[in-house]
C-alpha cells in the first residue's frame, strides 16, 4: 500500500489481505477480463469456457438485454437492436461518424453523443458499453468468488479526452471501481516485456477491430517508459470488412441493401477476410432477404489491392510516433503485434518491410492486452511488491486554448509524460473587462475549429482594470488516466474558476446519476445499505493506513501538537463509525484526509530523499 513505501523491505507495515482486482480489455470486437492468480496472469472464461466475450449487445422489447455470443448469433436477424462495434461511437457525435450509411442502426438525430433507437429504448454508447462491462464484472465475481476491489480498464492509446471519459463513465455505470485507465499498447508491452525479460526500445503495433495504435516504448528493468504514441481511433479490421462489402455489392451488382442484408454481408465479408489469412482464396455464398443468391470468390491478390490504402494508413502514424520518440528504425529492438487484424498477411509483410525485421508474434494477440491490464491492476490494488513495475505513459494529443483569431495555443504538447501540469498566463484586451471566456481544445491543428472542442467556461468577476493589466493564469492538469482538468485564476484579485472537463460529446454528472439510478434494480434501502457498507470499509482502511504510518514515521515527522491534532481527527472518525451514519462517516473521513495532508507531504518528501540516497548506495556497490 502506498503509505508504506518507505518501510524497510520485508517489513509490511499495514495489515493486508489479497484483494480481488481484474484487468478488462473493452474491445471493439471482443472484450476480456483477466486477473493474477498465484502470481500468474490468466484470462477468466465463462462457464462454457469462452475467453472472448463478443462486444455485442442486443436490446429486446420489455427491457431485456443479452450480451456476447447469444447476442452475436442474432445480429443478422435483428440488426437494428443488436449493436456491434459500439466502441467506435464512444464520445462521438453523429457528425463524427464516417460512412454512417453503412451501419444498420436507427441513429437519433440529437446533439451530443450518438444515440441509438432500439427495442429497449434510446441508448447511448456509454450505456451500451456498460452492459458489456457489467457482464465481465459478473463473470469475474463468479469465477473469483468475491466482490471486486477494482479494475484497470484499457483504452486505445490514441483515444482522446471525450473517448476516455466516456469509457470511465461506462465503468462507473457498471458499478466498477476504476483503478486506472491504461493504454492498450502499454498493457500489451507489460505482458510481453515481463514474459520475455525484454530490454530496449520496442514498438507495439496494435490493429484491432476498430482502432489502430502504435506506441514506442523503452523497456528497462521493470520500467515501461512510453516515448511516443500515435494512431487512428477510427481504423481497424472493420474497415477491411467494409472494403470487401463494397466489392461484393459491386461484383454481385446488388442494389442498395437493407439493414438485415447489410449485416449479413458484413459478416460474410469478415469471414472471407479471416479465411484469407490462411488461404489463398475465400468463397462467399449466401442468400439475401429478397431471394438474391450471392456466390463470389475473393482471392488474396484482389483483397490485398482492395485494402492496400488501409495498410498504408497505419504507416503514417507509425512514422510520426518514431519521429516524436526520436528513434530511428535501426534502434528498434522488436515490433510486437497486437490485435486480431495483425493476422492479415499483408499487414505482417508491410510491418516487416517497414521495420526491416520480422515482427514478434509469439503471444496471443487477442489476450495480451487483458493480461497486461490484470498485472497492472494487481500492482495498483497493492497485492504485489510494487517496486518492480513502473509505467510512465504519455498523452496522445496536444491540449490547448483558443486565442485571438481562432488560433490554438498549445499548453501541453502531445507525448508529454503524465501526470503533467502546466500553466500559462493570459491577459484582458479591453479596458474594464470583467470576464474572460476560455475554450479548451485538443488536437494538433493550428485553427481551433480543426481541433476537437473539449469545454468552454468563463472566468467572471475580474475587477475592472486597464487592458493588459489583469493576469489570468490558466492551469491544465492531466492525471494518470490521461484525463484533463482546467482551472483559471486572476492573479491580482485571486478570482478563480475551475472545471473538470466534460467534453462536448460527454455526459453530465446528472445524466450519469440518472442512468445509475435507473440501472440499479435494488430497492432504495438496498442502495443505502450498500453505500453505508462502502463508507465503513473505506473509513476502516483510512484509519488502518494512517495508524500504520504514524507508528512508522509519526515520531520523526510530526511534533506533539501536530500528532495530537491528527489523532483527534482519527478519534472523531472512530466515533462516527460507531454511529453507523453514512453522512457522519464520510464527513469525518474527509476531515481526517485533510488533517493528514501535511503528514502525507512530509512522508513523501522523506521517501524521495531516501530514494536518491538509496540510489547512491547502490552505485557504490557496483
Amino acid at each position, binding site marked *: 500500500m502506498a503509505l508504506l513505501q518507505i518501510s524497510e523491505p520485508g517489513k509490511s507495515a499495514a495489515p493486508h489481505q489479497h484483494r480481488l482486482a481484474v484487468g478488462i480489455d473493452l474491445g471493439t470486437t471482443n472484450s476480456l477480463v483477466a486477473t493474477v492468480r498465484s502470481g500468474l496472469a490468466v484470462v477468466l472464461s465463462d462457464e462454457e469456457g469462452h475467453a472472448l466475450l463478443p462486444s455485442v449487445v442486443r436490446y429486446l422489447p420489455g427491457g431485456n438485454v443479452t450480451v456476447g455470443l447469444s447476442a452475436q448469433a442474432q445480429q443478422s436477424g435483428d440488426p437494428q437492436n443488436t449493436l456491434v462495434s459500439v466502441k467506435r461511437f464512444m464520445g462521438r457525435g453523429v457528425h463524427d461518424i464516417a460512412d454512417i450509411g453503412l451501419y444498420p442502426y436507427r441513429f437519433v438525430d440529437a446533439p451530443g453523443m450518438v444515440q441509438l433507437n432500439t427495442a429497449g429504448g434510446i441508448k447511448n454508447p456509454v450505456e451500451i458499453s456498460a452492459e458489456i462491462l457489467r457482464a465481465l464484472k459478473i463473470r469475474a465475481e463468479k469465477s473469483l468468488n468475491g466482490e471486486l476491489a477494482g479494475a484497470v480498464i484499457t483504452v486505445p492509446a490514441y483515444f482522446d479526452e471525450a473517448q476516455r471519459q466516456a469509457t470511465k463513465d461506462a465503468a462507473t455505470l457498471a458499478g466498477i471501481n476504476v483503478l486506472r485507465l491504461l493504454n492498450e499498447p502499454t498493457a500489451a508491452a507489460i505482458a510481453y516485456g515481463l514474459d520475455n525479460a525484454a530490454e530496449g526500445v520496442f514498438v507495439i503495433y496494435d490493429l484491432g477491430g476498430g482502432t489502430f495504435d502504435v506506441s514506442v516504448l523503452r523497456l528497462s528493468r521493470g520500467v515501461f517508459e512510453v516515448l511516443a504514441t500515435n494512431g487512428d481511433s477510427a481504423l481497424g479490421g472493420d474497415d477491411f470488412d467494409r472494403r470487401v462489402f463494397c466489392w461484393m455489392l459491386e461484383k454481385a451488382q446488388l442494389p442498395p441493401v437493407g439493414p438485415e442484408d447489410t449485416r449479413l454481408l458484413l459478416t460474410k465479408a469478415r469471414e472471407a477476410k479471416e479465411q484469407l489469412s490462411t488461404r489463398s482464396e475465400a468463397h462467399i455464398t449466401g442468400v439475401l432477404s429478397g431471394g438474391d443468391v450471392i456466390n463470389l470468390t475473393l482471392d488474396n491478390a484482389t483483397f490485398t489491392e482492395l485494402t492496400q490504402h488501409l495498410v498504408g494508413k497505419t504507416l503514417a502514424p507509425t512514422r510520426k510516433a518514431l519521429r516524436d520518440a526520436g528513434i530511428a528504425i535501426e534502434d528498434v529492438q522488436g515490433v510486437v503485434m497486437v490485435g486480431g487484424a495483425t493476422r492479415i498477411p499483408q499487414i505482417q509483410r508491410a510491418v516487416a518491410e517497414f521495420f526491416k525485421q520480422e515482427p514478434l508474434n509469439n503471444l496471443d494477440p487477442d489476450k495480451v492486452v487483458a493480461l497486461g491490464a490484470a498485472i497492472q491492476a494487481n500492482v495498483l490494488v497493492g497485492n504485489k511488491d510494487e517496486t518492480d513495475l513502473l509505467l510512465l505513459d504519455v498523452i496522445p494529443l496536444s491540449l490547448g486554448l483558443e486565442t485571438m483569431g481562432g488560433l490554438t495555443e498549445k499548453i501541453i504538447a502531445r507525448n508529454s509524460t503524465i501526470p*503533467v501540469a502546466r500553466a500559462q498566463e493570459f491577459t484582458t484586451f479591453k479596458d474594464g473587462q470583467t470576464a474572460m471566456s476560455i475554450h479548451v481544445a485538443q488536437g494538433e491543428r493550428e485553427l481551433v475549429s480543426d481541433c476537437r472542442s473539449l469545454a468552454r467556461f468563463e472566468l467572471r468577476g475580474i475587477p475592472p482594470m486597464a487592458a493588459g493589466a489583469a493576469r489570468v493564469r490558466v492551469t491544465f492538469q492531466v492525471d494518470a488516466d490521461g484525463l484533463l482538468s482546467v482551472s483559471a485564476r486572476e492573479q491580482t484579485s485571486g478570482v478563480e474558476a475551475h472545471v473538470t472537463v466534460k467534453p462536448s460529446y460527454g455526459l453530465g454528472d446528472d445524466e450519469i446519476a440518472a442512468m445509475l439510478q435507473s440501472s440499479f434494480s435494488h430497492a432504495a434501502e438496498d442502495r443505502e445499505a450498500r453505500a453505508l457498507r462502502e463508507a465503513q470499509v473505506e473509513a476502516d482502511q483510512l484509519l488502518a493506513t494512517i495508524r500504520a504510518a504514524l507508528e512508522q514515521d509519526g515520531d520523526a515527522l510530526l511534533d506533539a501538537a501536530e500528532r495530537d491534532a491528527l489523532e483527534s481527527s482519527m478519534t472523531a472518525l472512530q466515533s462516527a463509525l460507531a454511529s453507523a451514519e453514512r453522512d457522519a462517516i464520510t464527513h469525518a473521513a474527509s476531515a481526517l484526509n485533510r488533517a493528514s495532508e501535511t503528514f502525507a507531504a512530509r512522508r513523501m518528501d522523506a521517501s524521495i530523499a531516501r530514494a536518491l540516497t538509496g540510489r547512491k548506495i547502490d552505485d557504490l556497490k557496483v
Partner: protein
Amino acid sequence: MASEFPQNHFDLFRLPVRFALDRAALDQNYRALQGEVHPDRYATATSAERLRSAQMAALVNEAYQTLKSPVDRARYLLHLNGVDTQEETNTAMPADFLMRQMEWRETVEDARAAADIAALEKALDDLKREAAEFETQLHTALDEKNDHARAADLVRKLRFLDKVRDETELAIETLET
C-alpha cells in the same frame, strides 16, 4: 507547511548546477523518483496522498523534461541566475544568422512544394547538427566563461532553430498523410 522539497531541478535529481549533464544519472534518478511518487504507487492511498502524489509526479516530470532538453536547461540555468532570455522581445540577430534562417526556410519551402520528403528529412538532420554546435557553445559560455549574455543569445538562436524544425516536421507530416 514548509516543504523540504529540493530548491531547484538540479538538486531534485542530485545533479550539479551546470549545463554539462550526466544523462545516465539524470535518467536513473528520474526513474528512482517516479518510483516513489508516481500515482500508481498511491492508487489505494488516502486522498491527501493521491493529491500530493499527482502534484509531485507532475513536478518530477516537468523537471526531467527541462533538464533533458539542452535549450530548456540553458534557459533554466539563466533563470536561476536571474537572467531573462527575452525570447519574445529581443529578436535582434546578427545578419549572418538571419541569412541562414532565410536559407533554412527556403530549403524547407522548396522541399515542401516539391513534396520531397527525403530533402525535408535531410534538412532535419542538418538542423540537428547545427543545434548541436550551438549546444557546445552553450557549454563554454555557461560552464567555463560564465558569460550570461552570450548564453542568452545562444538560447534565442536555438529557439529559432526549434521553430524551423517544427515547421519542417509539420511539412513532413502533412506530406505523409
